[in-house]
């Protein structure tokens, strides 16, 4: 068990990602942030707050992908989380999906499916706090807080003050 990012690291990573998103999209006029609950949604809020200090706050929404998962039948039913469409929708927008950990890529595949149901964005980009490798699908992140090489047996635990009392990322040992 070891802590790989503390609260300062997380704040700096989010600040850098905010700048990268603005730079890549030549400003924020076309950008919409879409967080994947639970922690991706909080990260999206934080990014919007940082962006407000740099330029302005883009529209923020959340997208629950539970009903689009391909592993639903492998696990007991899980509770649904909140979907809030951002102001102005996603039609023709540069949508930045935001999640805490990128692992197999299946969550993002489900998110792309869910997005397709809602509308047709101009582009879809992906921002994650942690990329821990072990992809099972041809998916990559455009913005990464930190690449953390892990063993497939370890798990990565992201804690955010909004729900976990503190900000940190730790690797939990083999279970």
């Amino acid at each position, binding site marked *: 068990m070891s802590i790989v990012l503390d609260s300062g690291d997380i704040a700096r990573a989010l600040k850098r990602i905010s700048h990268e998103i603005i730079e890549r999209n030549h400003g924020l006029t076309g950008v919409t942030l879409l967080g994947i609950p639970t922690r991706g949604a909080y990260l999206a809020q934080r990014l919007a707050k940082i962006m407000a200090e740099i330029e302005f706050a883009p529209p923020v929404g959340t997208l*629950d992908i539970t009903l689009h998962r391909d592993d639903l039948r492998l*696990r007991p*039913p899980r*509770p*649904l989380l*909140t*979907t809030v*469409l951002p102001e102005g929708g996603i039609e023709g927008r540069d949508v930045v999906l935001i999640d805490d950990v990128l692992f197999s890529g299946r969550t993002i595949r489900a998110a792309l499916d869910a997005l397709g*149901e*809602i509308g047709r964005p101009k582009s879809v980009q992906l921002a994650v706090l942690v990329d821990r490798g072990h992809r099972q699908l041809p998916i990559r992140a455009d913005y990464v807080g930190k690449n953390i090489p892990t063993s497939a047996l370890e798990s990565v635990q992201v804690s955010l003050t909004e729900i976990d009392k503190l900000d940190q990322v730790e690797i939990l040992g083999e279970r």
Partner: protein
Amino acid sequence: MQSHLLSISDLSKEEAIQILDTAEELRKISDGPMKKLPTLRGRTVVNLFYEDSTRTRISFESAAKRLSADVINFSAKGSSVSKGESLKDTAQTLQAIGADAVIIRHGASGAAQRLADSGWISASVINAGDGTHEHPTQALLDAFTIRSHFPDFAADFTGLRVAIVGDILHSRVARSNVLLLAKMGASVTLVAPPTLVPVGAEKWPVKISYDLDSILPDIDVVMMLRVQQERMTNFFFPSAREYSRAFGLTNSRLALLQPKTIVMHPGPMNRGLEISAESADSTKSVVLEQVANGVLVRMAVLYTLLGGLPLNAGTERKS
């Protein structure tokens, strides 16, 4: 939770609230542009209806289709049942076809339980009304509707006053509602002529009254029940007019209600008998909301029963 929904007593309070919360999230999704969800793609849901139904059948059908399940509608009329086929043979036919869930409405109390326990089929069984026994999804959608009008009571109905009025004796809706409302903490009063109060109701977690006028001013929810003439094999009240005068929600009784009170009816309504047309169409009436909410709640039930790992598969898996 088990893989069937036969009675409200199968559910704990937490499981019931979980279903209502799921329906709440589904409402947000359905109100947006995401009308159709891929969740139950490739799964087959059979509507097995031995009794007539408009609302419940189309509600289940619509719920299953919005989750991308394949739906087979079966009604006893026009099927081999009219040639004398037994429930067992019909059930085994459905098993052979590969049904993942069977939604059954039957005139005999306990039919859903029989189907679930018999070993005839491995599908999930959902009770959509069995005789005068239970109609659990109706109780869930009623609780959902109540909750959306009284947001202070989202997780607990303690302090909420509900009157269930009319033909309690023949009403599976009343039985399921009494169980669920009591489970959630509401105080429930049954109002009916003594002939339409079932034997044993004094042991239910309810108060019983024979005087509607004294109840109405102090109530948050009035649930009117249909007078089920098709089940009445006896004379339970002298005349429709007298019933209406004593136990119907007439225009003058509508005026007794507080501004926040809502009027519910599971449908189909006998306008002019248990509810006046003016009451049924008033702003207090949430009858059409109940229908709309029915689809969401049934989606939540289908998702809970079919969406995950089959719970009777018995395999443990860490997340």
